[in-house]
């Protein structure tokens, strides 16, 4: 039976290939995607309508069309995207050219490559599970091709078994095999993927709707106790310069030599921070970071900056002290932190005056201002009205609706009017605690802005005006607006059942996040560095030596196994049998094949019927062989004689 014509096998193969290409939908152009599935469906129809399949010329034209399509979508043949598309196109075209069993193998191996190429785009746990699933389907196809009675159910079972058996080996190889860093050129033409995130400037007046992305920014696992929510300020860029609307970073930060040495006290928090890929070099540490590992440095704004590639998921070990005194302020800092774009308006000066900004201590002014925010009709909202002109004034006196940026900007502005050094700090605040994995998840929606004021004898002090307006935003990390918007909070009181379901949902979500965290941390992030650390923890220090050992071990095991296999075979073949097989080979040239179940005597008789002229020699050989092989008494001379006889035949 021709396996290439077997309907079951073909359907199975096509189905698994259809599944393999499916997740590529996101990365390959729609036209290529459609072209591929068109070919697949054509082949599927071809199972029943053999003569509908394209002939050689048609296939050639299709190939040219496919290549043209690829070229039109992508100029070039190098790189990840072009390579993947080329493979997918080749797979689709090869489907229409199944003639022999060999083609089935070629297609299956191509499909394996396409399946693996998915990992160049996405390495999530779900995707890995999916790829594992489609690979077992492919494996089942291979099993079907090689079995007498193709049965998909049995084949899938066997494939599952094979994969389970292979897993320990895969784990060992994963742990021990040297991690090869992908060469940069492989990704050089990768399209720049814009990532939404914290930007290096802030313009609260021009935003009317703060997008609340659920995208993960980083995860933190604490060693020891967790800081309370009100201390969870993850410091990002510090914005000191303002033109009245926009707040930006100071580019020149070369005054760090003149800065005072900060004094830290209280109990430190020790934690591991796993940054998701980003396009900036920022590491969001808990205020204020003291100890951190090498590629990370702290700039003059006490912000952590990494010199590592930011587009990779990276882990950092950091220690932070919640209580600190940064000491005196440098002249540059003071200048930057009291900068104002122009003379403040009378209204603002009036307000500062009213709040005793000019004639009391800074501490008093801060308290007065925060009380002002709280007492007056200020509101916290994520959908503030636009404030194009004089945003701070508009906010303070007209709209009074805003989110953290508005409050931080207004606060800092007023401080500066009162000649108190102040600046805006952006970053993240809070984070969701995963009870199962015991780590904090910080998402884009946790982005925050607060103010920092320099006070005599205290140094830079964090003041969060948003806390005065919406303390629940800080204390409980509940973003009411967001919750309402996403439908988690409802004004209709929830029934008990619904509440339970919600709890259950929340729990399973946390479990999933925990799984994902472990996956990212232990599998995706397992690089050369981690490998070295892990290996040295199990007393393997020299990677090279271990490699040699590994290669030697695998080599010797392979050699041993193959020798055992071959030896077993050799042992079974007796010398007279070897000679007799040589005789059978000779007879093969005469077109006489010894059947599997045919004895030497019968075979000899058959040869004599075909070649009566050789009857004497054949009879002698047969008798001698029977005597040696089956008889009780035979000598080594018999063997020699048999050899001679066959040689002279």
């Amino acid at each position, binding site marked *: 039976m021709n396996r290439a014509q077997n309907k079951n096998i073909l359907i199975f193969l096509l189905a698994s290939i259809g599944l393999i290409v499916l997740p590529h939908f996101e990365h390959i152009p729609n036209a290529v995607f459609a072209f591929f599935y068109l070919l697949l469906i054509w082949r599927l129809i071809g199972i029943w309508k053999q003569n509908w399949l394209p002939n050689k010329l048609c296939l050639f034209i299709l190939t040219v069309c496919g290549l043209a399509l690829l070229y039109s979508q992508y100029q070039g043949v190098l790189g990840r995207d072009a390579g993947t598309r080329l493979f997918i196109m080749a797979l689709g075209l090869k489907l229409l050219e199944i003639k022999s069993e060999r083609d089935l193998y070629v297609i299956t191996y191509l499909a394996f490559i396409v399946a693996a190429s998915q990992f160049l785009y996405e390495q999530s746990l779900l995707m890995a599970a999916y790829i594992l699933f489609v690979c077992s389907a492919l494996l089942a196809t291979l099993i079907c091709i090689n079995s007498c009675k193709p049965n998909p159910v049995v084949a899938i079972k066997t494939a599952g078994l094979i994969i389970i058996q292979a897993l320990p080996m895969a784990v060992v190889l994963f742990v021990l095999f040297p991690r090869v860093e992908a060469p940069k050129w492989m990704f050089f033409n990768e399209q720049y993927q814009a990532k939404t995130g914290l930007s290096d400037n802030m313009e609260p007046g021009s935003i009317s709707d703060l997008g609340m992305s659920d995208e993960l920014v980083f995860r933190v696992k604490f060693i020891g106790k967790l800081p309370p929510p009100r201390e969870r300020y993850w410091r990002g860029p510090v914005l000191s310069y303002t033109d009245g609307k926009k707040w930006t970073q100071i580019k020149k930060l070369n005054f760090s030599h003149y800065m005072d040495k900060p004094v830290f006290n209280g109990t430190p928090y020790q934690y591991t921070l796993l940054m998701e890929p980003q396009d900036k070099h920022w590491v969001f540490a808990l205020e204020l970071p003291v100890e951190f590992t090498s590629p990370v440095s702290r700039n003059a704004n006490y912000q952590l900056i990494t010199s590592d590639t930011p587009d990779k998921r990276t882990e950092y070990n950091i220690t932070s002290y919640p209580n600190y005194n940064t000491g005196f302020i440098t002249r540059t800092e003071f200048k930057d932190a009291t900068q104002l774009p122009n003379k403040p308006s009378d209204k603002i000066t009036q307000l500062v005056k009213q709040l005793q900004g000019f004639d009391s201590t800074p501490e008093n002014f801060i308290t007065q201002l925060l009380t002002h925010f709280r007492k007056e009709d200020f509101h916290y909202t994520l959908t503030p009205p636009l404030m194009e002109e004089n945003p701070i004034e508009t906010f303070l006196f007209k709209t009074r609706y805003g989110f953290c940026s508005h409050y931080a900007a207004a606060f800092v502005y007023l401080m500066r009017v009162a000649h108190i050094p102040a600046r805006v700090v952006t970053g993240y605040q809070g984070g969701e605690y995963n009870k199962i994995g015991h780590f904090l998840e910080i998402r884009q929606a946790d982005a925050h802005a607060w103010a920092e004021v320099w006070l005599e004898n205290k140094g830079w002090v964090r003041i969060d005006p948003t806390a005065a307006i919406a303390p629940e935003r800080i204390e409980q990390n509940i973003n009411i607006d967001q919750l309402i918007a996403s439908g988690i909070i409802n004004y209709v009181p929830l029934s008990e059942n619904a509440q339970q379901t919600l709890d259950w949902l929340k729990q399973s979500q946390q479990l999933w996040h925990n799984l994902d965290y472990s996956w990212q941390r232990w599998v995706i992030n397992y690089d050369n560095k981690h490998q070295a650390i892990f290996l040295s923890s199990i007393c393997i220090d020299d990677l090279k030596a271990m490699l040699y050992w590994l290669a030697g071990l695998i080599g010797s095991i392979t050699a041993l196994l193959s020798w055992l296999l071959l030896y077993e075979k050799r042992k079974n073949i007796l010398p007279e049998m070897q000679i007799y097989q040589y005789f059978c080979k000779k007879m093969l040239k005469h077109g006489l094949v010894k059947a599997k179940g045919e004895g030497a005597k019968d075979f000899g008789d058959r040869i004599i019927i075909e070649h009566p002229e050789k009857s004497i020699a054949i009879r002698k050989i047969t008798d001698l062989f*029977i005597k040696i*092989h*089956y*008889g009780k008494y035979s000598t080594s001379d018999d063997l020699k004689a048999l050899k001679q006889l066959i040689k002279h035949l």
Partner: protein
Amino acid sequence: MQNDTQHLLEAANQIILGKSHKIRLALCCLLARGHLLIEDIPGVGKTTLAHTLAKLLGLQYQRIQFTSDILPADIIGASIFDPKNLTFTFLPGPLFKQLVLADEINRATPKAQSALLEAMEEQTISVEGKTYQLPEPFFVIATQNPSHQIGTFPLPESQLDRFLMRLELGYPNQESERLLLQGQNRRSLINSLPVKLTPEQLLIMQNKVSEVYASNAVLDYCQAIISYTRESSDYQYGLSPRAGLALLNAAKAWAFLDKRDAVIPEDIQAVLAAVAGHRLKSGNNDSAAIVAPILAKVAVQ
């Protein structure tokens, strides 16, 4: 010595025409100390074959016609009250003969069948606490009608296994049939047959057969056949160890008849259909067809 068997076979071939291979197998069965089951429709010469062999071998011969009302006592004998001595004396039944022809064995009830079959296995008969030794050599030729015929009790597998071989005689070919029709009455021919072998010679031959050498290669082949029947889906169950022994013994006898002192795979192949045919259950009832896949698929070692 093999010349004597040659003469014997030639003489038998004069009586039963065109069945030389079957006669050879029957003799082979006898030499291997096994019992023979002949299965075929009535009138193809089952009884004649048994009678001929008995005559040529000079064995005491007794025929037991099995019917549905035969009782074990009718076969093995019974104790009868002797009024003179006021004792019970055991009167041996027809089984106490060297060659017993159990005709139409599957027409008897299972109880009567088992009486015969126990005797076959043990070569002794126990009646009322006393054990009686059956004569040497002891050889049972049973005939049976195909089980689809009316009034038959098919032999269970366990009892079929006691027979070393099962033969199907089949219809004679055209030439033999013509000769048969032309020739004399078979019964008178049998009566005029000379004795070709004495029972003593037969016993010696049986001993010689067990001395035939079976090399490792042959044993490998034999085992390969057995495991094939156990693993293949063609058969409901495989050959038992007793069947394996039977196969080897029959092959040895075949080699002996072929004047060889060692078994070769062809010997096993020659007797396989007769030895394994009734021990394997497959869709087919024809012995040759049952073992055909074995012969084709098991590699000769």
